[in-house]
């Protein structure tokens, strides 16, 4: 019994802490709300600049590693081939990293920036539209992927090439040595589990709200808590089934289906929407994005517009960082056999390009309606962000079908996110086992879903989201050290070529 507890110390500790914090959210949501608001405000106010610098550093670091001699190293044996095809890999990358968020914000974000830009830009002007598109690209472009890449590359390198368990604590071996197996290593893994649990609970809760809104607009179902509860219930059953079938079947098949659905929706909107306008938006914004990349990366606007930066850019950066342990571990687990260069360029450029096209199509169509069509879609979005996409569809043919496709897309993205999060949580709490036991997957799946339901009811969901973002501060530091450890590991290997890889098969 003692051995069992010792072996599962990360699982039990993380589970107990999660339940304690969630318990506060259930029984005293006001307390969680005030504490999380205080912490969140303090961190964003005082360390927001650190997020900006950190994210830019991760981007530069990724580019430097990809273009350096280390780019030739393989994440696995030298002779190893990638486990998944490019299509399967990109689908899973995209589904885990962005998927649901893009559906949620694809229309809403450009329109929100257009209607409420920072103080130095006139609202609803041409400048505001250009700013809105540029910053939507910025928030969902290279930086978030660089954050994910740093985490996933480290985990993939130390686990697949150096034969260590796929845990975040493993990446600290060059610095901590055997201490990664002690309390310090456990602390890093527990923090990763907590950030993942809080992130996935809030994502599940907010996503369920959007699915409910979509369903309510095309079916007689009411936009009420009972519907949301039903949605979470169905999603939970589905993602648990998918999770049990493992990476190779469930998640991969769902992700591929989803990408195909998303591409179909994208193509449809591109054809029936203002095609030339969308391409103009894409090319103009691409130009604006790349020429203003450094400026945007470092601008916190302390003189005017700091509040806007706080609520958007800094929020996003903290969110991506807090989301990094989950996405990082998941992306690592599907990237075995790729070279470092292929991994970085693939994970950075392909999803970013798809994101840019997505924003140009949906955001561009929304702006076209607002500016050219004289329809106040931005006003409606401001009232309820989660209905932005459905509002847009209502102005196009086959809106009911489009909405249904979007709801299915949301649900499947939802399932893939929850599915991969459950897999990652079980993996992190099983000492990095690539095939974690089903009871751990079930434990985390039920915990996450039940918590989302309870917090939706009690109103503690946003507080939990803030708690998750709070975890981004220690994670920024952890990730900076991670970069150093990765560099140390790769440099060591380069200097001692005879120690390149060990017999990894025995360990798997």
């Amino acid at each position, binding site marked *: 019994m003692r051995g069992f507890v010792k072996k599962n110390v990360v699982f039990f500790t993380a589970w107990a802490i999660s339940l304690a914090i969630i318990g506060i959210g259930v029984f005293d949501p006001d307390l969680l709300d005030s504490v999380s608001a205080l912490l969140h405000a303090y961190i964003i106010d005082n360390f927001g600049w650190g997020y900006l610098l950190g994210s830019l550093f991760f981007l530069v670091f990724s580019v430097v590693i990809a273009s350096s001699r280390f780019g030739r190293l393989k994440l696995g044996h030298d002779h190893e081939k990638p486990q998944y095809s490019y299509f399967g890999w990109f689908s899973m990358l995209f589904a885990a990293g962005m998927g649901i968020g893009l559906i949620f914000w694809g229309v809403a974000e450009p329109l929100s920036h257009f209607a409420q830009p920072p103080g130095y830009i006139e609202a609803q002007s041409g400048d505001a539209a250009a700013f809105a598109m540029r910053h939507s690209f910025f928030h969902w472009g290279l930086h978030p992927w660089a954050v994910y890449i740093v985490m996933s590359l480290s985990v993939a390198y*130390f686990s697949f090439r*150096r*034969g*260590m368990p796929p845990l975040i604590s493993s990446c600290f*071996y*060059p*610095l901590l*040595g*055997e201490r990664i197996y002690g309390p310090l290593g456990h602390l890093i893994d527990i923090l990763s589990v907590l950030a993942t649990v809080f992130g996935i609970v809030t994502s599940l809760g907010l996503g369920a709200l959007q699915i409910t809104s979509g369903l309510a607009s095309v079916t007689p179902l009411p936009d009420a808590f009972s519907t949301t509860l039903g949605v979470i219930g169905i999603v939970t059953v589905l993602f648990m089934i998918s999770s049990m079938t493992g990476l190779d079947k469930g998640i991969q098949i769902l992700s591929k289906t989803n990408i195909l659905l998303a591409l179909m929706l994208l193509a449809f909107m591109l054809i029936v929407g203002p095609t030339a306008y969308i391409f103009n938006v894409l090319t103009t914004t691409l130009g604006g994005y790349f020429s203003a990349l450094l400026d945007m990366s470092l601008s916190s606007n302390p003189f005017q517009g700091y509040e806007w930066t706080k609520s958007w850019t800094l929020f996003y950066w903290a969110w991506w960082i807090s989301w990094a342990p989950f996405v990082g571990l998941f992306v690592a687990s599907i990237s075995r056999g790729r070279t470092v260069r292929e991994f970085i360029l693939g994970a950075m450029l392909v999803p970013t390009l798809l994101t840019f096209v997505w924003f140009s199509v949906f955001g561009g169509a929304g702006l076209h309606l607002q500016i050219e069509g004289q329809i106040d879609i931005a006003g409606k979005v401001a009232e309820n962000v989660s209905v932005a996409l459905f509002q847009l569809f209502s102005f196009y043919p086959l809106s009911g079908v489009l909405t249904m496709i979007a709801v299915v897309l949301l649900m499947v993205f939802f399932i893939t996110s929850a599915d991969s999060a459950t897999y990652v949580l079980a993996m992190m709490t099983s000492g990095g086992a690539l095939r974690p036991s089903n009871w751990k997957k079930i434990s985390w799946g039920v915990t996450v879903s039940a918590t989302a339901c309870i917090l939706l009811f009690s109103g503690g969901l946003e507080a939990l989201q803030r708690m998750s973002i709070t975890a981004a501060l220690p994670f920024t530091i952890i990730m900076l050290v991670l970069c150093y450890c990765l560099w*140390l*590991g790769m440099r*060591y*290997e380069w200097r*001692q070529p005879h*120690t390149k890889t*060990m017999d990894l098969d025995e360990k798997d």
Partner: protein
Amino acid sequence: MLRNFLFPVYAKSPVNTILAQAEFIRSFEPEKVYLLYVASGNSSRQIKRIDRIEKGMRELGLPVERLVRYGHVPSQIVTTAEATQSIICFTKKWKNPIKKAVAGSVISDVVRMSDEPIMIYKRGLSAHAGGVLHSSMYATDFKHSDKTCIQYIRHKAFKAQRLILLHVGQRAPDPETEKKRLENVYANLARLASECQKGFEKIEKREVLGLGVERKILRQAKKEEIDLLVIGKIDARGIMSRFTGSTAEAIYNRAPCSVLVIPSKR
């Protein structure tokens, strides 16, 4: 090897410490001791200083020859050392870091530029003159410098009761490779120990792990109360190293003991 010694004398060179170092040098039975004065003008005080040093060295029975050069001090020291195939002998003197950063340091420049060995002497080493040093330490990276350094360490004048062979290493990226690395390190230390066996009563092998090689070496030197620290020097290659300087450059100034820097070509 270890036949000729060059003592640069320039502004504020401490006469007594130079003479103490000369006393230590006596145990090497040198063929020639060069007293180099790089003049930047007529300075009667400097001339008097050199006279005193020369007189003191002659009293110690050293074969002194005085040289006068003009120009950039570090360059002249390096050029003369190369021409005379001498070990450059400096005396260690604390210098205000701000003053050092602004005005520069002759020793720093010479350590960076020279391809000849440099001995930076700290008072107290001469107490062992004629006898045996208490303890020496050789910090090795098992690279190019070992072959050259071992020749110096084995010289009878550097004989010590105890020699510590120190390797500061970086932990390998995973436990299995780390195990192999440690085996490799101890095999190399054992090889060096067997090569140095003759001159020392006791040879200890140390492996220290961590980043900040300079800091680790200095900490060991202080902890073990080392009299003489021997380090090899290879020209800095990377961009960062060119800014921060080699390990030898970082160590000589902060070492709690005398330092022998031995440059070696790649």
